[in-house]
Structures are given as C-alpha cells and as structure tokens.
C-alpha cells in the first residue's frame, strides 16, 4: 500500500539507497510491548482477545504481540488465539493493480464469534486494506469488537478509519515510501522511509544513517 516514487532533484546526503531509518530494533520492541499492554488494558484482560495479522508483515507482528500478551496475561494462548487474515479478495483496487496472489486465511479454531478481535498491520496509510479486512471479518463471523493495532501510522487516510493502538505516528509526504523491516522476514528490525524530499525535517528519535 506504500507507493514509492523516484527521488526528485539531487539526492539528500542523508538518504542512503535504503532510506532513512526512523525506528531501530529497540524502538520496534518497545512499541510492541507498549501496544501489548494497551491491548490488555483496553480489553480488561486478554481472555477473549484474538489477534489477526494481515499478511505479510502484519502476521509477523501479530506473532510477536501474541508472545508479549501471553507473558502479560497467561489467559492468552499464542497457539489458540492467533490467526492471519488475507484481504486480497476484498480489496477495491484489484482492477488497478497487477494480479495479486491470494494468501492464506487462518482463523483460531474457536472462531471469532464474540471475541475482541485485534487486527495487526505494519503500516497504516490510506485505510483501504483495513476497510477490506473489516469486510472480510464480516463474512467470517461477528466479533464482539474489532480493534486496530499498527506499528506505524503514516497519515494520508482516504477513509474514516483510525487505529486504536499505534507504535509510532510518522508524518510523511504522499510520495514517500515507508517500509517495516522485521528480523523474521528481512533479517533486521527497522522502520525505513525512502523517497524523502530533500530538506524535509526528519521526525522522531530513530537513529539516522
């Protein structure tokens, strides 16, 4: 969902080809721990919480959140209460993009009926993926509540959707590209912005290269 464009003008000296690192590994870990605590606080425990990750990075993030939830509240079982939700077939941009491969949807065995369902995604941008996810959930059952956790909220929403739990609010330009790198998939934990306009202010406390 992040649309990257070539960098206009002369390259910013800060901008190595991989882009600017705005969150490092420790920042990502702290953000996830805080989100886990917020989920438990909001749901008053974790016994009815179900985590659903949205492929691909959301699934990895959900698995990490599940470990943290289990250590906060033993009522949460990472084996039982974790799933993944592929939203490809519910997207509204299927005709504008090259054909996407359909991913796996795996729900907890007990289903999502009456649960507090937390959707987990890496970057929240236009909100269209979440809209598709809400439609997909509607076809799968009727959870008691649906909440949204994302590691990065980069703004530019096109739909009235807002996250309940955010790792980091990251003001960005539309043309920039925000990538979440995770050790399980990419070998390292980081949040990287690329395609940044020269002279733009780098927000956040993340280490710059």
């Amino acid at each position, binding site marked *: 969902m992040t649309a990257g464009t070539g960098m206009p003008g002369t390259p910013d000296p800060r901008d190595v080809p991989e882009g600017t690192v705005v969150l490092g590994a420790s920042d990502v870990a702290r953000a996830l721990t805080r989100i886990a605590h917020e989920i438990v606080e909001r749901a008053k425990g974790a016994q009815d919480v179900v985590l659903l990750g949205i492929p691909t990075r959301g699934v990895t993030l959900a698995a990490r959140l599940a470990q943290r939830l289990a250590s906060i509240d033993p009522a949460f079982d990472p084996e039982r209460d974790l799933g993944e939700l592929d939203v490809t*077939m519910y997207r509204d941009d299927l*005709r504008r993009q090259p*054909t996407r*491969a*359909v991913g796996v949807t795996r729900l907890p065995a007990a289903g999502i009926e009456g649960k507090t369902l937390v959707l987990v995604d890496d970057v929240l941008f236009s909100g269209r993926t979440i809209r598709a996810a809400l439609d997909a959930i509607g076809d799968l059952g009727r959870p008691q509540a649906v909440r949204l956790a994302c590691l990065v909220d980069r703004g530019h929403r096109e739909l009235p959707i807002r996250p309940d739990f955010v790792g980091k609010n990251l003001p960005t330009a539309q043309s920039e590209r925000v990538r979440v790198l995770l050790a399980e998939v990419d070998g390292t934990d980081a949040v990287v912005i690329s395609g940044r306009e020269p002279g733009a202010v780098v927000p956040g406390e993340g280490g710059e290269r």
Partner: protein
Amino acid sequence: MKHLLSTADLAKDEAIELLDTAAQMAATQSREIKKLPTLRGRTVVNLFFEDSTRTRISFETAAKRLSADVINFSAKGSSVSKGESLKDTALTLHAMGADAVVVRHWASGAPYQLAHAGWLDAAVLNAGDGTHMHPTQALLDAYTIRRHLGGHGGGLRRGGDDGVGADLVGVKVAIVGDVLHSRVARANVWLLRTLGAEVTLVAPPTLLPIGVEAWPCRTSYDLDATLADWQPDAVMMLRVQRERMSGGAGAFFPSPLEYTRYFGLDARRLAVLPAHSIVMHPGPMNRGLEISAEAADSDRAVIVEQVANGVAVRMAALYLLLSGSTTPATEGTAL
C-alpha cells in the same frame, strides 16, 4: 495471462500459481458465507454450444461465489439455432460488455478463434472444445492429485498443507480409455507433464489418435500389465464417448463387454494398485462400461471430490484472468 485456452501453453509457475490460488479458494468454500466480493460488477458469459451440465454449473457456481454476474447462453433455443455465426454471437457479447466468456464448442479451436480474432476484448476461458482441450478439467485433476498424493512420500515433493506450492514430480498417472475423443486426456497429458508427473495412456489401438507417439507420455495397450508393473499413483478413467463414435461403439471395439473386460476398472484391478493410489473420472460415468460400481464407489475413488475441486479451480481461473489491471502496460505480466 489473458486467456485460458490450452494447458500446452501454461508455464509451470503459472500452473502452480493457479493450483495454489485454487487451494485458497477452496478454503473459503468451507465457510458459512461462501460468497466473496472479488469480481463484483464483472460479467461472465457462459457460452455453451454443446450440452454440458457439470462444467456449466461449476463455472456458474464459481463466478457467483466471486460475485460476478452470470449470463448463460446455450446454443439450443438461441440465435445460434437460427443460424447465427460464432462471429456475430461474439460481437453481440462484446456489445453487451462481457468481461469473460466461458466457451464450450464442438469445434476444436473455437475458443482460440474467439480469443484472437479481435471480435471480443473479454478474457476467454476454454470449457472444452471438440477433441482438443479442456484446461479447467485438467487443472482440477492436477489439483486433486496434488491434494491426495501430497504426503504419501512416493517421490512427491512436499510444499505444505494440501501440497500447496508443490509440483507433481515423481507422480505416476495412468489415463485409461477413449483417448481418441478425449479433450480431458489431451489437456491432462500436457499439464501433468508440465508439472513433472509421468503419464501413461492405456487404450485399445483404435482409440489412440494418430501422432500419439509425439505426445509427452507413454502408451500401452495392456491395462493389467500397466497396473501391475508400473504401479500408478493415480488412475484416471475416461468416459467412452459413444456420441462421438459415429458408427456406434462397434466402430472402435467389438463389443462393450469386451471393452469392459480389457479396459474397465473393476475391484480385481483396483486390488492390484498401490494402497495410496486414487481413482479418478471426469464424469459423467458409464457405470459398468469403463468403470464398475465397486471401483466408482470405493474409498479410493475421488470422483465426487473432483467436482468440488472444480469450483475452486474455476474460481481461481476467473480470479487470475479478471482481477488484474486492464491497462496494456501490465497486461501479460498479470499471471
């Protein structure tokens, strides 16, 4: 991939993508709400110049499960019976704004003509043309084989649950019966070959087409020897297509009873097969001719499952043909 016309021009990665997508589609079909909004607003025309029940219903179900609008057009009782040409029918469909045309025709090559003559800009899916090809049937057969033989360890590479991601390297498939008239056999030979399986065609010499030695498979006239010596993992029985045998069955073999004796699958031949093997039939079956009731109803038979898998495979084909960008820049890279 713009059209699905033949399994001979499917690359291996395209075929595996189709099967993997079918696996995800099949997973959605066990839900309470089976309908997906994916192809909302798209129109699929079922254009059937030849009688068909299961293929048409299967395509119709697949399109409806993906929320496409379905228009059924059969030659009987339509403008075609008044003498309309294929071209004029195609122009009519074009004017009505069809996004995909599922075509079954008695003439081999009719779907190719429809796709390439410039009459239509819709995606064309071949649902069986003459004695040429029936790609979705071959895909559902390959899907069924992969699902069943994914874990038996007989040389089949494991990809994951239900064999997702795997090919069919090491799997041995015997295709038995009326190969001459069978588009299912032709479609399967090329697809199974592409996926890495070994195929042996078993038929009386009169029911093997001229030029079969150029096909990427072996042939045999002896079913008992093939089953006993070659030990196939899957046996696919073909229907004896009496409607295509102009002189009646007698023109190709002396009598139905003799055909059954030599080429019918019965309990005795079933017992010769390895324990993990499966029995397939594209339907409709001539019970008592090419397959006995014991074989058709045995727990090795996956014939009913083939029908269920057909819906998933056709959903996958419709999804992959219709969902991608329609701009020329990305066309062709879509699959």
